[in-house]
């Protein structure tokens, strides 16, 4: 039985038994290569669930829909390792209770989907640890290496070009499961920290703030980059921040639900080479 079939029948059973009130998964999208999230509450609808290498979206963020988990009931959700790490972070940040999240785990390896065994976020700690080790060794991609080799003025010009295209649609924010603030700092107008007009200045400020607020929290799921209508390479900023917290604080976000957030904790011997 394919994993798709296997999880379909599991979803059907979970719903029929009343063990979960909803299954959050993937269904066919508007074009053959697209997948879209579905929210299934009836066992008969489970035949709509699709699982293949095109299921890239991190679905964890949908669990934060206001009131969805407030009845204490469980929800089943299709999650890859990044998704499970997201659950851990959201639990650590008191946004949900991991006991209400029944995981249907999978991993995409090139064009194949593979099962990841486990039901609760805590069952995936080995896979997460393996990801951390792999991440430590990951070489920067070509563009990132090019950027690092530039001088400051050249880098500024590069980002100026990228951010000049930003239209401040905030799709990157809406798509990010970690952007759960009710009121985002960019929507503040007393004081107005970030220029709201979509001039490059405000776009730069917005993108810096976004990257900073995701530092030590981003799981590199890629939801933001896929959502950006003008293809700004947001992953470069996310990766830079992930690399920084990993290197400076040995922090890999989402290890478990008790992990302290990188920027809400400290060690007395944290590095500080740049401080005068």
């Amino acid at each position: 039985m394919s994993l798709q079939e296997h999880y379909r029948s599991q979803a059907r059973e979970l719903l029929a038994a009343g063990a979960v009130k909803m299954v959050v998964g993937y269904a066919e999208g508007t074009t053959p290569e697209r997948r879209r999230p579905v929210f299934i509450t009836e066992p008969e609808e489970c035949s709509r669930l699709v699982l293949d290498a095109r299921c890239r979206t991190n679905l964890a963020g949908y669990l934060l829909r206001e009131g969805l988990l407030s009845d204490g009931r469980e929800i089943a959700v299709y999650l890859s390792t990044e998704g499970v790490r997201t659950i851990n972070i959201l639990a650590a940040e008191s946004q949900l209770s991991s006991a209400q999240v029944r995981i249907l785990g999978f991993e995409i390896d090139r064009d194949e989907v593979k099962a990841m065994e486990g039901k609760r976020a805590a069952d995936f700690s080995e896979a997460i640890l393996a990801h951390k080790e792999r991440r430590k060794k990951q070489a920067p991609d070509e563009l990132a290496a090019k950027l690092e080799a530039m001088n400051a003025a050249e880098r500024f010009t590069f980002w100026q070009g990228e951010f000049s295209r930003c239209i401040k649609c905030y799709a990157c924010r809406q798509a990010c499961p970690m952007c759960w603030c009710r009121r985002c700092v960019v929507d503040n107008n007393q004081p107005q920290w970030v220029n709201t007009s979509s001039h490059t200045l405000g776009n730069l400020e917005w993108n810096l703030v976004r990257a900073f607020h995701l530092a030590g929290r981003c799981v590199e799921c890629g939801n933001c980059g896929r959502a950006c209508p003008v293809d700004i390479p947001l992953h470069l900023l996310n990766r830079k921040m992930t690399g920084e917290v990993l290197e400076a604080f040995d922090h890999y976000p989402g290890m478990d639900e008790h992990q302290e957030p990188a920027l809400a904790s400290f060690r007395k011997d944290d590095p500080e080479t740049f401080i005068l």
Partner: protein
Amino acid sequence: MSEPFEPKIVAFVCTYCTYAGADLAGTSRLKYPSNVRIVRLPCTGRISPMFILKALQKGADGVLVSGCHPGDCHFDHGNYHARRRWTVFNSLLQFAGVPEERVRFSWISAAEGRKFAELISEITEDIRRIGPFEQYHALIAETGSPAPL
């Protein structure tokens, strides 16, 4: 336009250490450049990176963020939290192409009036040498907001 370039520098400092250090520099009659505008805050833990962006947005050529040495925080650990934030934000700014000379971080205690005066001189000289932050000023000009500071 023949006037020599005078950098505008904003310093965000905590009141218990660096501000007191600046005060000591003053009462000891130490000379340092008048290019720096000091903004006093209760603790480095209160200094949000948004402040740095705001200073640049208003046309600053340089920013200094400074507070108590690790272990000396009036609130015990505000500066440890701040340090983590600085580490991350500093790396982000540099990745975005903000030259490292433009945004500096330091520990200056209430007893270090001399360090304060010397650091301000040093930072001012550095920025005088690299000139106004033209790349940023060009972005400000594009928004049609009044000329920087």
